């Protein structure tokens, strides 16, 4: 494309966000180079990313179905009680593991693959490695969920997959991570972008968190109550170091990319990343307040949770300052709207985490629905929403079509946002009510449990909203997958009638 000396796009100075005028000659050639490069990269990532996305969405639908049963059975325990594989004790772990390993992990890996290829500025090598990884991953989740439903659950929260499924998952993960390392090894360009730090961190932290836990629980099991310490350390760190890192890395890409402006500050990003890495891995034990553990263990985790305010404030400020002056774009861009929602949810999630971990409060709420609210805030309102946002950005580039219906995107966003908002509110308020009635010695345990029934029904309603959102999204994604998207020169804005006004901005 370029005639003589190829221009290194990395050396071209950034254009100021507000000025619309560029020097014509150099800008055009640079753009050409970049466009060709992106087109090649996107084409090479097409198959693996779509494979991971499609699998993830199938798991999302299955997980939603299981979630519906789980939620419904809490206030209608007779529902399908005759089938042992549909009892609450099996479908709840099945639901959680499908969501964690089937949906969230696979969708996160899909996004991570695309981001890695784009940011390393190389076409995807060895796509078979990834496809094989995806096949094994699906197989692992399938075996695991089947094992749970059959009754082979290990009984450790978020680790219920029986060992034979874990082995398959491990193979799958090794394939994916070796691909990621290869990509990073053969990257082009001098500097690595913030997103790459987080993705690389996530790819290296996951085997540590998952492997260490597997060893301590199943290979050389630790004794007694220490098992629950290991389990909670795992659950929290999977949330922070795996999903949190992928989610934050994605937000660091999508926000500046969509609004076309550099991230506010490199220094803030560096501080945010390293303090996150430092403090997040200390958390987890705060779930064990008042348990039979040395006080310092629990308190160290609480202190680390308090200190995690540092990365949260830093990352939050960085995103906010990047967005400043561009919040109007939330009206139009689906990607931006989902991503910014997720970023706000991340701040809320972290601050709620600090609040719930303090000893005086944890004593009230840590055996209640409030901790379920906390998990959903992290895994859904933060991570899943950001991943939805990235899918709205990435999929059109892979299939060469624009999203078909702006109305469906809007409906997806609002039912997801209201659904998860209602769910977190119901579970959190219900959890506090449950905690205070459990602390009331004049109430029997069953009375305390009865007191949260209205909240559980409310949670089921919120679940229906989420179900609608997921069905809409799956349908829309299916249209894209089968080439039924729009062919247009403009992206699908959320408010199409006003697109002329924002043409220069997006």
């Amino acid at each position, binding site marked *: *494309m*370029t005639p003589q000396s*190829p221009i290194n*796009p990395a050396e071209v100075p*950034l*254009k100021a966000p507000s000025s619309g005028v560029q020097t014509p000659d150099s800008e055009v050639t640079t753009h050409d*180079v*970049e*466009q*060709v*490069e*992106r*087109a*090649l990269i*996107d*084409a*090479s990532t*097409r198959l693996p990313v779509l494979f991971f996305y499609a699998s993830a969405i199938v798991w999302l639908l299955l997980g939603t179905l299981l979630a519906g049963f789980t939620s419904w059975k809490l206030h209608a325990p007779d529902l399908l009680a005759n089938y042992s594989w549909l009892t609450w004790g099996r479908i709840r772990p099945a639901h959680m593991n499908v969501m964690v390993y089937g949906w969230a992990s696979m969708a996160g890996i899909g996004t991570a693959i695309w981001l890695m290829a*784009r940011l390393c500025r*190389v*076409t995807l090598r060895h796509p078979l490695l990834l496809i094989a990884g995806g096949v094994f991953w699906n197989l692992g989740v399938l075996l695991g969920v089947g094992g749970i439903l059959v009754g082979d659950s290990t009984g450790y929260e978020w680790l219920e997959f029986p060992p034979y499924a874990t082995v398959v998952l491990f193979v799958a993960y090794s394939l994916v991570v070796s691909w990621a390392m290869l990509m990073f090894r053969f990257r082009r360009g001098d500097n690595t*972008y913030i*997103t790459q730090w987080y993705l690389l961190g996530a790819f290296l932290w996951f085997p540590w968190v998952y492997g260490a836990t597997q060893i301590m629980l199943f290979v050389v099991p630790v004794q007694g109550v220490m098992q629950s310490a290991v389990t909670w350390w795992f659950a929290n760190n999977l949330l922070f170091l795996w999903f949190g890192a992928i989610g934050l890395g994605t937000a*660091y890409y999508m926000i500046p*990319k969509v*609004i*076309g402006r*550099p*991230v*506010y*500050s*490199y*220094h*803030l990003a560096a501080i945010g990343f390293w303090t996150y890495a430092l403090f997040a891995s200390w958390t987890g034990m705060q779930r064990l307040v008042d348990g039979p*553990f*040395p*006080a*310092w263990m629990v*308190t*160290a985790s*609480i*202190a*680390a949770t*308090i*200190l995690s*305010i*540092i990365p949260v*404030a830093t990352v939050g400020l960085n995103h906010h*300052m990047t967005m400043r002056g561009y919040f109007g774009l939330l009206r139009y861009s689906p990607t931006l709207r989902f991503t910014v929602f997720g970023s706000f949810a991340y701040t809320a999630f972290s601050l709620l985490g600090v609040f719930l971990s303090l*000893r005086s409060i944890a004593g009230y709420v840590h055996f209640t629905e409030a901790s379920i609210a906390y998990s959903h805030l992290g895994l859904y309102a933060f991570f899943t929403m950001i991943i939805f946002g990235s899918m709205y950005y990435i999929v*059109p*580039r892979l*299939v*060469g079509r*624009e999203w078909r219906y702006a109305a469906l995107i809007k409906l997806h966003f609002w039912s997801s946002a209201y659904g998860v908002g209602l769910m977190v509110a119901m579970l959190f308020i219900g959890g506090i009510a449950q905690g205070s009635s459990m602390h009331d010695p004049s109430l029997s345990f069953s009375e305390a449990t009865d007191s949260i029934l209205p909240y559980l029904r409310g949670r089921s309603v919120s679940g229906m909203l989420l179900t609608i959102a997921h069905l809409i999204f799956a349908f829309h994604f299916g249209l894209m997958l089968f*080439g039924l998207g729009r*062919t*247009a*020169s403009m*992206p699908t804005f959320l408010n199409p009638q006003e697109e002329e006004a924002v043409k220069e901005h997006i």
Partner: protein
Amino acid sequence: MNERASGGHVRQGMDYGEDADVHEVHSAIQREKREPRAGMEPLSIWLIVVYGLAIFFGGAYLGRFSGNFSGDSLDPALIPHVKTQGPNGPGGAQTQELSQADRGKKIFSANCAVCHQPNGLGAAGQGYPPLAGSEYVNGGTRRLGMIVLKGLQGPLTVKGQSFGAAVMQPWDKTLSDAKISDVLTYIRQEWGNKGGPVAAAQIAGLRKELASHPDSFVEADLKAVPEDAELPGGEPAGAKPADAKNPAPAPPK
């Protein structure tokens, strides 16, 4: 990759589907903004204030609720307990937590029961004399304090039975005055023994007195002390405090 050489591949890569209109297919990439970069804005002072606050509260929380970083303290607010164990009146062992003898029992099982056995009968086969019914335990507190503080080198005759050359280690480096007084109170009241309680202040006095004494008494040193010699500052039955100094054993060697 090389942009110039890959001109042909570009078309291939662009050819996503059945649509021949390259321009339309590629619109997403054409309108796309540059890959994101990071700006270089400095750190805001307010953020540093937030960091300081988080570090302060995190540290304060750690200090306040860490239970002294002790492996066996399950209670985050353990710190005050240590202070309440101060010297009680010898009879006033019943505090709001544990009696002196109860505390002594814990110390006994942790430190003494290995040799003297939980039942206080010792192990004659290995040369460990009994505490139950022992004249040294039931007699005056002075001998007992000497043995525990500085240790004992056999042989020794207890209850008419001779015990061999087993060595009892000195405990003055390991156990505090309060702990020694607790454990002595315990063994003087357990297993049918009929001794009075011992106060931490008594042990503290003896510890000061024996500070320069080398380790390990022998039987002769003990015999030099009257059997009923009590430590000063203890029971009403305590022997004359001034006089108690005189029979203090001469350095054995």
